[in-house]
């Protein structure tokens, strides 16, 4: 059986590609870092791959708005390929800046099915960059990236962002998100309660930290699973915590791809 092929997309300012590459590799995928120039020029095609990963960082400096420049370049050049990719049921994941790009590309929530921007990730209510570990509750394990977790399981992941406050277009959209069970992860306190700052680090509505697409093959989240593939890069591992949370995201995805493709 061939390992699933994963494209980790990069451009100036993206900067999680290395650990994302390693995480996919560590989970058994055949990963490659691809500059979006190569997609724009047609030198490489998305259809060569089984999964796309949008890494974190500051694509194009996050000037204008986080993720906006990367998304608008992709929208202008390869949107059709991306839509076909989504339709094929292959997997797409974006963390941090990657989530911002997914939102700007309209891949998530995409309730209206026409890839319009239906939400935003606005500046943190604290008005500062927040780099720390947060507690998260898994609220849906249907999408492949989350299948290795239990519902209501509480995990820890690092965050590092300035723009992570999820805002939906309107009430109706939020209802659709809930109806379709799209919330994948929520910010919680150590006991699993949904509370405000600092446990909700950015002021996201309903403590939303990550969303799956309706069909489940896309996951966008603000935290960084790719930075904690093993427990040793968790901020509190020296206290005897044993969980390797980060790799479960990637292993779940690879397992799924191996079964399906």
């Amino acid at each position, binding site marked *: 059986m061939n390992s699933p092929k994963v494209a980790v997309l990069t451009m100036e300012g993206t900067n999680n590609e290395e650990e994302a590459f390693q995480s996919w590799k560590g989970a058994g995928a055949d990963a490659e870092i691809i500059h979006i120039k190569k997609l724009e020029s047609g030198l490489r095609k998305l259809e060569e791959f089984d999964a796309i990963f949008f890494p974190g960082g500051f694509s194009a400096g996050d000037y204008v708005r986080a993720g906006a420049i990367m998304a608008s370049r992709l929208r202008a050049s390869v949107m059709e390929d991306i839509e076909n990719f989504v339709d094929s049921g292959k997997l797409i994941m974006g963390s941090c800046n990657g989530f911002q790009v997914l939102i700007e590309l309209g891949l998530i929530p995409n309730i209206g099915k026409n890839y319009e921007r239906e939400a935003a990730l606005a500046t943190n209510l604290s008005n500062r960059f927040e780099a720390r570990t947060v507690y998260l509750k898994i609220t849906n394990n249907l999408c492949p990236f989350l299948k290795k977790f239990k519902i209501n399981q509480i995990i820890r992941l690092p965050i590092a962002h300035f723009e992570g406050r999820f805002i939906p277009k309107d009430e109706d959209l939020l209802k659709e998100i809930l109806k379709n069970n799209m919330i994948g992860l929520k910010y919680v306190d150590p006991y699993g309660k949904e509370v405000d700052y600092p*446990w909700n680090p950015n002021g996201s509505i309903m403590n939303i930290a990550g969303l799956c697409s309706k069909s489940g093959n896309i996951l966008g989240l603000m935290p960084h699973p790719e930075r904690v593939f093993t427990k040793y890069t968790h901020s509190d591992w020296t206290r005897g915590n044993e969980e390797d949370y980060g790799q479960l995201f990637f292993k779940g995805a690879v397992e799924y791809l191996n079964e399906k493709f």
Partner: protein
Amino acid sequence: MSDFFKVIALRNLTLKGLKKISEDLALGLSIQEMARIQSYFRNLGRDPTDVELQALGQAWSEHCGYKSSKIYLKRYIFGLNSEKIYSQGDAGVVLLDENYAVALKMESHNHPSAIEPYGGASTGVGGILRDILSMGAQPVAVTDVLYFGINKYRDYPSPAFIRSGVISGIRDYGNRVGIPTVSGGIYYSDMFSPNVLVNVGCVGIVKKDKIAKQSIDKEGIKLIIAGGKTGRDGIHGVNMASANLDSGSANISTVQLGNPIIKEPLIHAVLQANEAGLIYSLKDLGGGGLSSVVGEMLYSGGKGGVVYLDKVPLKERDMLPWEIWVSESQERMLLGVEEQNVQKVLDIMNDWDITSAVIGESVKGSKLTLYYKGEIVMDLDLDFMTSPPLYQRAYRLKYNEYKFDMPKERESYNDIILKMLSDLNVASKEYAVRQYDHTVRGNTVIPPFTGIIGKEGPTDASVIRINWEDYSAISVSHGSNPFYSKIDPYMGARNAVDEAYRNLVSVNSIPLAFSDCLNSGNPERPERMGEFISMIKGLSDEAKDLGVPFVSGNVSLYNETGVKSIPSIPTILAVGKLKDYRKAITPDFKGTGNPIYLIGRPGIEFGGSLYFRIQRKNGGRVPFSDPKVLYQRSEMVLRAMDAGIILSSHDVSEGGLALAIAEMTIGSDIGAEIDLTGITVGRPDFFMFSESQSMFILEVQKGKEKEFEEYMKGLSIKLGYTGSQMLDVKFNGKTLVYLHIDQIRSKWKEGYI
């Protein structure tokens, strides 16, 4: 004659005339230096061009030429433990194991940050990243040690404004290039108003056979400039950094903000070309711009060169040759590349969307010749250009009278400890550090703060792993104490080294290398020069017996304004190694009922100590450091750590052992019961708050006391046990300290969340 360059008739000028030329062209050269230039051109039988004079002005600046410091650096620092240095250039390199080496360097960006804090600090980070990149190394950690004022001084910008600009600048640059900012320090004192100090460091990892070299020792090597375009920004930056800071006289052309979004792909591209073996030599463009980097690259390899200035990609079309030659525009690298590899390198740059161009090549001989639109605009002997006069300036050593004001004894030290915890110099720096991404790259094993999520306390050193395959890692930390240095520059320097070293030991790593960033005042003043020399001597005396080399460093003089000068303060960046990062140790207590040990014995040496500072009293002599003692203790501690019986560890620094233990409770929710009865006979407050050097606090696994004490050969003092939720210190039946951890933590975190 062309209108893009001038010939300056200088051969017949008087000294006064020479002085005027230096001023008119903003060369920053003294009369004697101008006279030296004059006689050189008299010998050549011609007058210099403006390009030539500007080139000399750059090369001979204090910043580039180390005119005032070189003699002392040579005497005391260079050559010290140098057999352990693997390679030296823009940064220093030591070996880590059979395959990998680590590059490190710390540098100041004081003057630019005083004028424009945001741009000054961010271009500081940009510059230090380039130094590491110049070694062919992947930057893996950025660090910053900052010294801010508290009160506004005259009409200089307010310290609050400076602070927020500096921290934002480091945040925005470091985060955007995607290198974690993982270690540093922040000091507050009016010593730094208005002379703020911004010292930034960077550490990189390189395969030992891929270390880039910085010289060209062959003819026909093409010179490629890559990265940002060249503009008028930053012209004469080095001259500014080589002069006192005058109020309001900010020269706008030297202010730059930096562009991390050019740097980020530039790092990828340069490393890719280096990995592919396409780079013959590599250097970054910093102070002095092309002039300084081309000159040094060729001179160090014994070759001459030609450069076509009109081939340099420009931001502004109408730049003059001299401006192109000395511009300090950011984000630029110079690559020496063999002819057959030129196209490959240009292609890689293009793949990453980076501007690059071939601008010249190395030639036989020792001359550097510049062309612009077909005309020769500079033709200088590299030997002359790159060897500025060195000065042995007059100096006067400082002899202190040490004053000691006896503080009164108290019934309880609760208030003192809470006050210490919220002192700006001790309190949590999370307000700054949590704006820095310290987990990017996914290799941060020990971050700046650890412990229970949401309750984290400070760590002594950060640990970064090398790769995903094995368990080796490096540790990164700093040492500095401006309060000691102010009283005693010699011992202050020694203690800075002690602190850096023990921070590394504290996480269970073996110290490998130091980089020193030396900050001082105006060297033309004998007292300042005396302090400066004492500082260098202190660094040398301390590091020698520790067996650790200074692999790189930087000197920043003229941190002086009117009547105010900073003391001579060294910032030490230290890097160590861990064979197995799974054995790394953090300060937060791990369990209850475990014995707590002190390694070392507190003495009565309170000069510059926090205990005396918060009571506004003179503390006499500053603590004394003996490197042999530090070395011996460290060896023993490391052996016990390797045996797996140490659960947590913290070095003793500001506030003494009481504060060290308080800090160990912060991230843990576990308190400590300490009884000093029988341990000390003198004043218990002196015991608790002494900042004697080379001390550690260790939490040892219960039941392993005997084994531990054997490792320590009788040099450990058992202070008590972990337990409860209180910090509880007793002495002769009296309770000296009784504080709940929540009180301790909230004081320490005051101002954050």
